[in-house]
């Protein structure tokens, strides 16, 4: 057994590798090649995921002084501290509410936009490229642009509000408005992606059911509700899953726009973890939080994947 094989064994559950006994001799060289081609990927992924997570477990059980020096083991203290910490639960609440509002709006808007854009024409092709620009940009740059536009004194949005005879609004200084601003920025950047995925789904639907509905005298809304949406469900679920997983890790926009404030109104999990990790004495505390976040993410991801699989199986 060479070293590559041993490394792979560490990464993979046992039952995946010990099958080579019973196979036909002619296939064994193919099998070797298959494993060899996979090995570099698994080694690199293990080094970059399993190793850091293992290290995080070690840190979470340790205590540190203010210079970041390891000072001893504290058992599960850091986990208990995190789980009984109101700040931690606040960040979970902020993240979940943010994700629900942002992704929900994106699915609604993206679906309607796709419905409007679904007819083929040359003009639509160029429009489509214009509409999807936001999702290609760095979230950091997007946040900078919105920070400029939302500025209380020289921002264009407040200037236009004044033009309408309204008061200036300190968008990023009020808890609810700051939170909603983040949601709007996320909608701006990611609705195009949902739109594009749903549009691709719409364009690949068969035509017969629509003609049948038309003959049966169904109205347009009825056709959309009872024919189109059920057929599109798998595609909508794919968009939902991808967007939810990304929204749960929102960091860049918070970093630029609000730094988690005012108060803790916009402090997402990722931002809270960043803030704690910046204080060296709280490495252990931060790592415990990260591992809890990891568990929550695994639970949410597997629920989403179940949803995705069942929606695809239904079709």
């Amino acid at each position, binding site marked *: 057994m060479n070293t590559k094989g041993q490394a792979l064994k560490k990464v*993979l559950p046992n039952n*995946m590798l010990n099958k080579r006994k019973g196979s036909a001799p002619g296939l064994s060289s*193919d099998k070797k090649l*298959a*494993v060899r081609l*996979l090995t*570099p*990927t698994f080694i*690199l*992924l293990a080094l*970059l*995921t399993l190793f*850091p*997570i293992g*290290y*995080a477990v070690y840190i979470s059980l340790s205590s540190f002084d203010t210079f970041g020096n390891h000072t001893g083991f504290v058992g599960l203290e850091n986990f208990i501290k995190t789980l009984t910490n109101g700040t931690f639960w606040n960040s979970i609440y902020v993240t979940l509410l943010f994700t629900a509002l942002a992704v929900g709006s994106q699915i609604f808007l993206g679906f*309607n*936009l796709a419905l*409007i854009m*679904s*007819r083929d024409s040359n003009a639509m092709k160029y*429009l489509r*490229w*214009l*509409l999807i*620009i*936001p999702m*290609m*940009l*760095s979230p*950091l*740059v*997007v946040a*900078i*642009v*919105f920070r*400029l536009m939302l500025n209380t004194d*020289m921002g264009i949005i407040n200037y236009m509000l004044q033009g309408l005879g309204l008061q200036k609004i300190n968008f990023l200084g009020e808890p609810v408005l700051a939170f909603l601003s983040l949601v709007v920025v996320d909608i*701006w950047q990611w609705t*195009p992606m949902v739109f*594009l995925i749903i*549009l*691709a*789904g*719409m*364009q690949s*639907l068969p035509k017969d059911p*629509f003609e049948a509905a038309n003959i049966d005298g169904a109205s347009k809304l009825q*056709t959309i509700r009872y024919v189109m949406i059920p057929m599109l469900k798998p595609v909508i679920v*794919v968009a939902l899953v991808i967007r939810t*997983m990304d929204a*749960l*890790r929102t*960091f*860049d926009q918070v*970093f*630029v726009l609000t730094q988690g404030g005012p108060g803790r109104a916009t402090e997402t999990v*990722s931002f809270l*973890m960043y803030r704690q990790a910046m204080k060296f004495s709280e490495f252990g505390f931060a790592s415990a939080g*990260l591992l809890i976040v990891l568990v929550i993410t695994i639970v949410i991801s597997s629920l989403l994947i179940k949803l995705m699989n069942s929606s695809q199986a239904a079709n």
Partner: protein
Amino acid sequence: MAMISAKQEGWKIKLLRGSFLTTAIIFVLFPLYWMVITSFKTEGELFADKQTFFPENFTFQYYLDPVEGIFSPNNPFMQFFLNSTIVAFVSTLLCLTIGSFSAYSLARFKMKGKRNERLSFIILTARMLPPIVIVVPLYLIMQKLGLLNTLWAMLIVYTGFNLPFVVWMLKAFFEEIPDSLEESAMMDGSSRFMAFVKIVLPLALPGLVATSIFTIILTWNEFLFAMFLLNNTDVMTLPAGISTFITQYKTNWGALTAAASMSILPVLIFSFLVQKHLVKGMTMGAVKG
């Protein structure tokens, strides 16, 4: 596609459709327009009581000024741009090399049971991990290895974290190529690996190009890892570097928008090139575009 035929539409629906579309276009384009024109405004105009929708005194000072312009040698912007370019291209090259092997293996060698799917799924889980969970311990590990503030750290991180994406994308592209072609090459005596290099890779070239461009864009835009692992302006990539402008020159919006505008230019060009594959790229091959 004319599932709901256009003829039966009344003017009310047409109006509704038109206004929804117009609103969407303005909503999307205005922030971009505002960013670009702000970079051409003089400071006086920017902070004036009356905001202008087009610069009255067009200025290139934030780009070309020998002291504060982003293109001047005194400004770190060009260094950021260079670092981003190096990191994006080298890590993409590495990632595609490693990723194409694995993608080929998963696409072609049908292992017993559901092993293919399970292995693909293990690779995918790496994409689902929240980066913040990894970056804190990774910071400590890189510190021990002496790789903090080096582009090496970024090359390792980006090569690794883009691998799941690359493997899934290329797997989808390889599966579209009929395997009879490799088989006939193997009949002629070439090895399986050479058949992959000489037959499959050239055929999958459009897919390889599209995947590379996506990987370059992902790397170009990444902020969290860069911010944690790079603290020195000599090695910062664009997002990390631009973020330092926010605190350093708290109100220098001209320089900030100029840098932001320049940093998105390559992405716009690249995204135009991969338009055809966008949907596949965004869903890692789950939805065909």
